[in-house]
């Protein structure tokens, strides 16, 4: 097995390092976290350097890129301490590039290249999260128009997005798998109102409730095929889980590096605390988890690149990385002691942000549901 990087991967990571040093120092990230602002200027810099369109098809100005390289970059950006710093834009673009019409594609790609978040995913509802069949937001087609009613909640980045990629159900179709369609709804459409939700983590990404009251739009807002919304959404979920796993890996590595450096410098009882075996035990177990995460993420990406069916791999990888990364950050926090929980310490932000990945993009538990049934099926 070749664990070495290609010349191209090595150079790309060096370029990313250069960009991170210039455009995304820790002071920038800490300010964004404190002021609850998105990393717009960094996103623009990523796009200007060509990173924003990595993985997009060439006909849309992108550069095709393998999954291993993409997760290497996501890991590197998050290792800087920036949550959800890379890769999610690609997922957004892919949803539209695969299923959108030409005007939707041009609109979304234009917003992405301007460093904007083009749309938020309107999926979760007060009564429907992991159980998507319980979704109640309705989409009623009539006279070339479609009218939406319902409530979405815990929608990430909607307040900074121009559109909502809305998942809504045709009340006339009984089979929930055939009832859900995907729509691109402008956030400023009449009848759309929001309520910001304050949360204790992911401060650079806003969250809100969205209320749709008789929002009526031309049917051209439909993305893809009517009734195929859930299938379309699922198509990129495997890659999303992988990007989240790489994000967790990067953030956990950042926490580990901070904790190990602190342990080497913090003197108690006349010596650095890193010389005590209890601290060394923590660092060793953290390092093992990081190595496991790295192997899991890279291998899953390699499987994608080589057309190996992922089956339960994506869910297993997401579950393991989200949980192990949080454990690493938690131990890092323990090594820092009281200093770690003070506002402004990077490790406290990493601890907060990593906690969110244990439910964002699918809970630890739903990953068991996905992987478990696949494992049983494979052995039946």
């Amino acid at each position, binding site marked *: 097995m070749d664990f070495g990087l290609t010349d*191209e991967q090595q*150079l790309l990571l060096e*370029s990313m390092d*250069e960009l991170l040093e210039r455009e995304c120092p820790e002071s920038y990230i800490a300010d964004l976290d404190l002021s609850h602002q998105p990393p717009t200027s960094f996103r623009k810099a990523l796009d200007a*350097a060509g990173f924003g369109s*990595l993985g997009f098809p060439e006909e849309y100005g992108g*550069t095709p890129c393998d999954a291993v390289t993409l997760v290497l970059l996501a890991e590197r950006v998050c290792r800087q301490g920036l949550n959800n710093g890379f890769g999610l834009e690609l997922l957004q673009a892919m949803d539209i590039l695969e299923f959108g019409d030409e005007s939707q594609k041009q609109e979304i790609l234009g917003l992405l290249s301007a460093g904007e978040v083009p749309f938020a995913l309107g999926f979760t509802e007060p009564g429907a999260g992991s159980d998507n069949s319980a979704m109640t937001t309705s989409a009623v087609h009539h006279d070339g128009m479609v009218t939406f009613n319902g409530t979405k909640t815990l929608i990430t980045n909607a307040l900074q997005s121009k559109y909502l990629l809305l998942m809504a159900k045709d009340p006339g179709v009984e089979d929930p798998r055939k009832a859900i369609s995907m729509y691109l709804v402008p956030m400023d459409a009449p009848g759309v109102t929001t309520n910001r939700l304050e949360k204790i983590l992911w401060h650079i990404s806003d969250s809100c409730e969205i209320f749709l009251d008789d929002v009526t739009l031309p049917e051209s807002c439909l993305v893809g095929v009517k009734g195929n919304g859930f299938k379309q959404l699922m198509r990129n979920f495997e890659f999303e889980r992988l990007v989240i796993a790489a994000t967790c890996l990067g953030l956990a590595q950042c926490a580990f590096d901070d904790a190990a450096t602190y342990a080497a410098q913090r003197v108690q009882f006349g010596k650095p605390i890193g010389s005590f075996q209890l601290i060394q035990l923590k660092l060793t177990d953290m390092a093992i988890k990081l190595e496991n995460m790295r192997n899991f993420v890279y291998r899953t990406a390699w499987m994608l690149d080589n057309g190996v069916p992922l089956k339960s791999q994506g869910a297993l990888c997401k579950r393991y990385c989200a949980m192990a990364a949080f454990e690493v950050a938690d131990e890092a926090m323990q090594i820092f002691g009281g200093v770690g929980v003070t506002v402004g310490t990077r490790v406290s932000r990493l601890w907060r942000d990593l906690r969110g990945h244990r439910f964002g993009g699918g809970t630890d538990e739903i990953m068991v549901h996905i992987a478990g049934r696949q494992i049983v099926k494979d052995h039946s």
Partner: protein
Amino acid sequence: MKIVVAYKWAPNPQDADVRPDGIVDLSRAKSAVSEYDPVAFELARRLADATSGEVIGLSVGAASIDTSLARKAALSRGLDRLVLVADDELDGADSTRLAGVLAAAVTAIGDVDVVLAGDSSIDVAEGQVPLTLAGHLGWLGLGRVSAVTADGAALVVERDLPGGVSVLAVTTPVVLAATADAVVPKVAGMKDILAAAKKPVEVLALADLAVPTAGTTLTTLATARPAGGVRQAVLFDATDPAAAASQLVGALRQAGAL
């Protein structure tokens, strides 16, 4: 305009290991385009784009400067093509020798209008090579260049000097050494990196070059660590903020910081 960028494939200081005795150990550092050289690449690219010109990268050194990674690293930074002189006879060569080989290579390339270089190399940092190169070529050599633009067949060169910015009308051929902050170099993206593998590379044999003979050999008699700065802590009573600020300014002036 035909522009050559003379650059060094040097150890990356991020991988440097500082020993307890203060010695900076670069033996395990991976190599990269020397830290200040991308500024020269960027100035050259802009000048070439403005004059429909060509940018040729040029590096000389031990055989290890010619690897697939080293070629792509340079070519992804806006070069049109690359010329290398890679020979272990140049391993550890001093700046005079390297400048002589560079001069011979520039002559071999032929019809060069401008040679651009970074301020200094990241590992040796003597800042000698560009002007010694100019001397070997018999061309005008200018250091501390902060901007360069075309003016017909000539150039307008700005130099950032302690006394202020000097703007010069310069005729070619010329050797220019850029300041480290002259421009912010473009970061190489995936397209640049992929395109790098397809650009032409020419390797010149050292034996085939008319390298000027050095008139003298440099002998290092001794090396010493730079003197550490004198540190002191001064506390001001801030009960009266205005008076404390005044005392702070006075202390900074006295220390020569202002």
